[in-house]
């Protein structure tokens, strides 16, 4: 069993380590302890700027910094970075295609006890509609670290989605693990159904594949860490092979991975696609394992949906 670690922890560690090699600045909106930018702050106080609880201003300040050639990372919770400040992200950063990296933590239902107001289940949908925006949702700590470095080296705006909850570090166990923006990773090959997952749901999809194998169903599992640009060719090739697809994400089924995959497959390879995720509803307070059950973000549900998708072939 892989070690468990929250992707936000890897983000903070990445900033602190990469800060030795690269010249960038970090902004936060009074959440440095939670987003883990505080790790960078401690090491490089002269390159860290707290903007207070004013996310809109922070995003536009970052845009101004980027016009002068410096690279800013800006952090807040996903709901505020993508929601409260959406229009600033679109108009200050997206439209002039400025080199700003948004490190959004506490995405999705695994925020847990804080409840619906703080569980950003719509951020990938919101960010994905902005032209030129790259949207990345790492599966685990190893991938989160790699994604942070890749975002830094990428020229253009990037939205990075991290979680609060400790998740198994699957990528650390892969031989020759390599992260490339826009390139999906086949975690397991199979022929009966394709499980396309992002974020920590990749782990759930792998468990689902194991459950399906017990019933003689051979599932292919693909980790789509980059929601935009989507690796549509990889997904379509797999769908063509298996004929049935299930998407899995800790996000609304509207507009995120599920939406993006349906958009791609409707053009490239029409086939049954069932979407596991938050079903057009708000979250609620609770312990994470219980919330995952309530919202169907489990290996068991992915396996069930896979069988339904196969039946629709």
């Amino acid at each position: 069993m892989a070690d468990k670690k929250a992707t936000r922890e890897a983000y903070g560690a990445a900033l602190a380590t990469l800060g030795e090699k690269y010249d960038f600045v970090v902004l936060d909106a009074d959440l440095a302890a939670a987003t883990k930018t505080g790790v960078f702050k401690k090491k490089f106080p002269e390159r860290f700027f707290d903007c207070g609880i004013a996310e809109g201003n922070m995003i536009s300040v970052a845009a101004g910094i980027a016009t002068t050639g410096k690279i800013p990372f800006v952090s807040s919770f996903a709901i505020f970075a993508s929601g409260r400040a959406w229009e600033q992200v679109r108009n200050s950063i997206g439209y002039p295609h400025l080199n700003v990296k948004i490190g959004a933590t506490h995405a999705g239902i695994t925020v847990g006890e804080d409840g619906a107001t703080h569980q950003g289940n719509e951020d990938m949908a919101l960010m994905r509609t902005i032209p030129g925006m790259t949207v990345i949702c790492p599966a685990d700590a190893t991938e989160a670290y790699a994604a942070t470095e890749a975002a830094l080296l990428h020229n253009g705006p990037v939205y990075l989605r991290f979680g609060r909850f400790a998740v198994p570090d699957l990528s650390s166990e892969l031989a020759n693990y390599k992260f490339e923006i826009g390139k999906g990773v086949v975690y397991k090959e199979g022929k009966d159904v394709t499980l396309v997952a992002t974020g920590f749901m990749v782990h759930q999809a792998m468990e689902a594949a194991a459950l399906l194998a017990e019933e003689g169903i051979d599932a292919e599992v693909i980790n789509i860490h980059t929601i935009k640009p989507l690796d549509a060719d990889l997904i379509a090739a797999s769908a063509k092979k298996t004929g049935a697809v299930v998407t899995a994400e800790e996000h609304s089924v509207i507009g995120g991975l599920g939406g993006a995959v349906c958009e791609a497959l409707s053009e490239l390879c029409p086939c049954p696609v069932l979407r596991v995720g938050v079903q057009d509803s708000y979250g609620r307070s609770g312990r994470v394992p219980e919330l995952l059950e309530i919202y169907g973000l489990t290996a068991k549900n992915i396996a069930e949906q896979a069988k339904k998708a196969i039946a629709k072939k």
Partner: protein
Amino acid sequence: MEELRKLELKRTANSVRHGIIDGVYHATCGHPGGSLSIADILTYLYFEHMNVDPKDPKKADRDRFVLSKGHTAPALYSVLAHRGFFPVEELKTLRHTESRLQGHPDMKGTPGVDMTTGSLGLGISAACGMALSAKISSDPYRVYAIVGDGESEEGQVWEASMFAAHYKLDNLCVVLDWNGLQIDGPITEVMNPTPYAEKFTAFGWHVISIDAHDFDAIEAAFAEAKATKGKPTMIIAKSIKGKGVSYMENKCEWHGQAPKEEQYLVAVADLNKIDEELK
């Protein structure tokens, strides 16, 4: 200011006003009122004060300018064209599909535009980011911005104001164009953002109040801003919306519409008359 230099600035500002009217007329839409109200201050900044080079619009040590009230792009374009960043004739392409001159400033498309703006409240924050960046790397350039009086109803203007004072951005100077009118009426009736001087002082800014059309006052204010250490400067510039065109002055309806042909001819005649007076 010596009289000859002042006269030259007044002539240039009037040419800038001609460019505003020409641009908006040929666009058949746009925002003449608030463009005309900032023509003198923009002329002073680009012809007297800021370190800019039309031949090298992106030079690293240039002073930066952000038009936070981005809808008055006709004024920025006109001053940039007259300063030599692109041909004055191009002003007539304003808002056309093939033009480099978008309805609101686009830093990627127009030479001399330092920041993309238009959505109110965002530009002043970007200016703060530029000023902070200069502080981080000890760059000597200064950052200027113009914020609209109606724009100051946006909460983000006050977030940015807190930020600028907190980080002691004394390399930042913002002009508040107080022409008193917004789309729905007088600002004090729509949503009163005044008193300005008291508010910005309380937010930690150095505040200077001037007549936006008095070049002596404009020069003194920018000099005072430059000499002010430890805090950003807010120049509250009381202006006349539509300044220079008789029927547009202090008229709310000229916030966002273009003159028809006969109105255009009257506007040109008004500005020609000012040209004559300045000969």
